[in-house]
Structure formats: structure tokens, C-alpha cells
């Protein structure tokens, strides 16, 4: 009987070095990661609230077909804003909940997240004023995301800042 070992320490084959010369600005950055069936992003930011905002920017970027960015959130271009109050059992689940809520708003109303002000962010609760561009704006999504998963989810401190990994179902 032949026996083959499995490498349980598979690494993502793309990292930040592959997305060019994106500068690490004060707000953070995001980039897509390889996944055979679906699609994920990794996010870096100097603070936890900035990480949540940058994760949402990353999801908008994925919907628009981008592969990575260190964007300036653009509240002034927003067509409308909305206060969101969310709860989850812990910090990781709260990040997923936040992205799910924004994805629902996108799917049901065609609105795309552009920026947010985090009014309150604890391990279990989030209050944010999120801004959106309207469907009439000259941006059209390139892909549909079915959901934000808990798979391979990570939210941790990294160096002086914060890091997250989120996998979407395409």
C-alpha cells in the first residue's frame, strides 16, 4: 500500500510582494489571495477600526474586479450614508458580520461601500456610519459574491498594526 504524506502547511502562493509597489499608507491596504474555488483577501491596517474599514474597501474592490489597493476612503463622493449597529459573539465573527451586512446592502439595493466612520467598536459590538455610492454612479460590479465565510478567517495583531484574512464565496 503506497503512502503519500500531505503537506499540512500549504502557503498562499501570492503575498503582498506580488501586487506591485503599493505603499503602506496610514490607513492600510488589502490584496487578494489565491483560492482554487473561491476568493479571499488579506488586509493590513494600523488600528482595529481601520482594519474593519479597509476590509470593507477590499470587498468593494473584489466586487469591482480589483486585485488590491491602498485606497483613501471617499466619503465626500458618497451618495448616501447609513448608521449600522451590529453584534456578534466575538471580534472575528463581528468582522464577518460587518462585511455580510455591507454585502446584503449591495445585493439588495445595488449600493457599494465607499467609506465608514467607526463610532464604536468593541469585541462584540460595532456602531458605524457607512457611506455608499449609488447604482447610478459610473462604477459597475464585475463579480457577484455569494457570501462572506468563516473559513480560514483570521484577525490578529501583526507588528504595530492589525491583520485579517477573509474568504468569500464566489
Amino acid at each position, binding site marked *: 500500500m503506497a503512502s503519500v504524506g500531505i503537506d499540512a502547511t500549504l502557503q498562499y502562493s501570492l503575498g503582498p510582494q506580488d501586487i506591485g509597489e503599493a505603499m503602506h499608507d496610514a490607513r492600510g491596504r488589502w490584496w487578494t489571495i489565491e483560492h482554487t474555488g473561491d476568493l479571499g483577501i488579506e488586509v493590513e491596517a494600523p488600528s482595529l477600526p481601520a482594519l474593519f474599514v479597509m476590509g470593507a474597501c477590499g470587498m468593494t474592490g473584489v466586487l469591482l474586479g480589483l486585485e488590491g489597493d491602498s485606497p483613501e476612503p471617499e466619503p465626500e463622493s458618497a451618495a448616501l450614508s447609513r448608521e449600522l449597529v451590529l453584534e456578534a*459573539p466575538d471580534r472575528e465573527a463581528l468582522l464577518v458580520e460587518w462585511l455580510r451586512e455591507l454585502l446584503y446592502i449591495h*445585493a439588495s439595493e445595488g449600493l457599494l461601500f465607499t467609506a465608514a466612520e467607526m463610532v464604536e467598536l468593541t469585541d462584540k459590538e460595532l456602531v458605524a456610519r457607512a457611506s455608499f455610492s449609488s447604482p447610478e454612479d459610473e462604477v459597475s460590479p464585475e463579480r*457577484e459574491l455569494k457570501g462572506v465565510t468563516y473559513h480560514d*478567517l483570521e484577525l490578529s495583531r501583526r507588528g504595530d498594526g492589525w491583520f485579517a484574512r477573509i474568504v468569500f464565496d464566489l
Partner: protein
Amino acid sequence: MAVEGYRLEKIDDHRWRIPRTGPMLTDGLVFADDELIPHIESDKSLQQVANVACLPGIQGPSIAMPDIHWGYGFPIGGVAAFDLEEGIISPGGVGYDINCGVRLLRTDLTARDLRPQLSKLMDRLYRKVPSGVGASRSDLKLSLHEVTRVLSNGAAWAVENGYGWAQDLERIEAGGALDGADPDQVSQRALERGRAQVGTLGSGNHFIEIGYVSEISDEEAAAALGLEMGTVTAFIHSGSRGLGYQVCDDYLKKMLQASEKYGIVLQDRQLCSAPLGSDEAKRYLGAMRGAANYAFCNRQMMAHRVRETFAEVLGQSAERLGMRLVYDVAHNIAKIETHRVNGVEKKVCVHRKGATRAFPPGHPEVPEAYRHVGQPIFIPGDMGRYSYVLVGTEGAYNETFGSTCHGAGRMMSRKQAKRTAKGRAIVRELEGRGILIRAASRATVDEEISEAYKDVKDVVQVVHRAGIGKIVAQLKPMGVLKG
């Protein structure tokens, strides 16, 4: 924490075992040959097979089909059955696109008859079936009450409203409506998302493919299914659209809480689940069945549009063109079914995520017209090569809870596929090979290039040789409508 230190052992030419280790409650069983195994090992899908083997009440092995690839939580191409008392149900074991599945129509036309009209047919289909990102209908927006009727009645709702033929229902898994759907368990958000999307294709890997029978391997079964050499066919691959995604989303959150409440240890939070006897499980089952019925209705309505389009373009009625439904089968679903476990017949909850039901000849759930040959199974390949029609077997019933593979299985991430397609005109390349593409987005076409997938022939040959499916016919594409 994921299972660590697992190994893969070859059992025979088409089977591999991941022996039970650490928190695993059972072995993993992988169907693959020496050529497919390196692809399968190149991502995290085997890790996911091992993780599923840790879930309480699992019956038999945690099974992986040869088209397995890395999903989220459960692998795509995974089958797992659970005891009704000690086992669990997991929305992650069904997926976001509840009852994503495939239906096949056949016609009396030959490829030669259709070729001169093909371009016109594809243009009309593109106009008639809403496709692409967030596709919704401007011509049909159901009331919330009507959506709940769709959730209860499935494909029958479409037939009652003039979309299709009464005899279609006999040729759909579960008659086009799963019993036990409970619209009260479906959130307002999900219902809202379902209002304007019934009869829409969506994006990603969903498609309508017009093709023809290019090879017959089993004359008797092909004849029973109405397939002859050259017969023109139409595949429809889609699911429950935003309504299904929302049901999954809503219940993942509830199941995360349920997992903690019932002390279920998770190797991956996406495997969150609830004991099958719990209130949470009953609610999810009721909602999931409703979403599955929405998907049956969705494919029924698109089939009606396909018939209408053929009739318009060819100037003959769909009846005259012999456009019978061959079958419609799910490949993302959880069902309570009776199977033999350790020699004893018992009811289990079978999760098929990227796996197709494959019931054998003689099974009462196989339509009478096919009972002597087995349940039809459709395994779409990529848009540039071919697809396969199979039938279910006793082997599948005995070894895989009546399940087999569902597709070619991705080999490249979408990012890799886009890089491979860069600088090429994929639509023109395919046109040069006689395959017309109509797509809402170029990005989707690039991400879905042939090279991104395994050769589906390699996949179906494994299930055929392993005895968990029997090849009946090969179909080649002539025109593909992509989201």
C-alpha cells in the same frame, strides 16, 4: 484548529484513504487516480475532508469525489452523511447556492439542423434569460406571498403559471419540490431577494449550454434518456440565486451560536452546525428546502425560456421539436434519505456539496421511464471541451450514499485563470472551434477558460471505473450563455 498530521494511503487504482487520526471520528475516502491526486493535493481540500470527518454522528467515511477542490468549510466535491439522533446538519455542507444543480433538455434536432440558426438562437437566448452580476428581472417581480408559494411548491409553481409542461415535474429530483419546506423559517431579507430573480441565470460558473451528443457509451441508457448521436441538447446550470445565499448567510450565524450551545467542536468555523434533532436544525432544514424549491422553479422557468427561444428561431413549437426534459438534479443539498450503514438500513442526513445524487436502477425515487437504467446524472465540463451524461449505480448506493461527482473541478484560481487568458481573445478562440459564447462579462469568460478546469473526461472515468456512476454519453458545446 484543523486536523493535523493526516496521511493519504492508496487503496486501489481509484480510491485513497485518509486514515482516522486525532479528532477524526472516521476515515476519509477519496475517489481519484494517480493523475488526479497531485492536483487534489495541491490545495487544502484534503484537509477539509479530514475536518468534516470530525463532525459528530458522521456515518461511513468523509467522502471526496475526483472533482474535489478547496471550498470553504466542506470541500467542493464532498459527501458526508449523519445519524439523525447523534449527527448534525451544517449549512456549510450545503453551501451558499442551495440546490445549485443542472437540468438537461433534449430535442429532435440534430447539430446540422441547428448550426445555421445557432447565432440567432444564442442572441435571442442572451436577451431572454437575464444573466450576469446581480441579474434580476424587470418583467416579473413576485409579491412576498408568491415567493412563499414558490418556496412551498417549487417547479410546480412555474408549471401552474404557464412556464413549462406538467410532465416536466416527473423528471425532476423529488418531483421539483422537496417536502418539508417551511417559508416561515426564511427571513424577510431572503424573501425580498427572491422577488425578482426567479428565472435568472446569475454569474460565475452558471451557464446555459446548447450542445449535441458526440459519443454514446451505453446505448440502452441513452435510448431511455432520448439521446441519439447528434441530438441537440440544452444544459441549464444555476441555483437559488440571492434567496439561497441569504438563507445560508442567516443560518451560518445561527449555527455558530448553536455549535457553542451544543458543545460541537469545530475544526473550521464554517463547519458550524446543530444537532439534527434540535430546533435550530429543523428551522434550517425548513428554510433550506424552501430555497431548494426556489432553485427547481428557477431552472424550470429558464427551461421554458429556452423552449420559447428554440420555437421562435426555428419556427416550430417546442412540442414539435421534441424538447423534453431529460432530468434535473441538485448538486448542493442536504437530504434525509434511507441508506445501508454497516449492513443496516437507516435514515441519514446526506450532505452533498458539489456532488450529485446517483441512485441506482430500481430505486423508487428514479422516474419510472428511467428505472431500468438508473437516475440520470449530468457532469458539465468546461465551456471549450465536453460534458457527460451518466446514470446512477448500485455501487454508488452502497459506497457513497448514492452520490457521485458534479463537474470538472477547478484547477486554477480565478486570478491564475485571468493571467492565463491575458492578451487572448477567448471568445474568438472558441468561435474558431465552432462554439459561440454570449457573456455578460469578459472577466467571467476569462475566469472560466478551459485550462482553469480539470479535463472532465478524467473525472468521469474515475467514477465510472470505481463503479459510482456509469457513463452514458458525451455532449459537445455549440453555444454557451455565461453570466
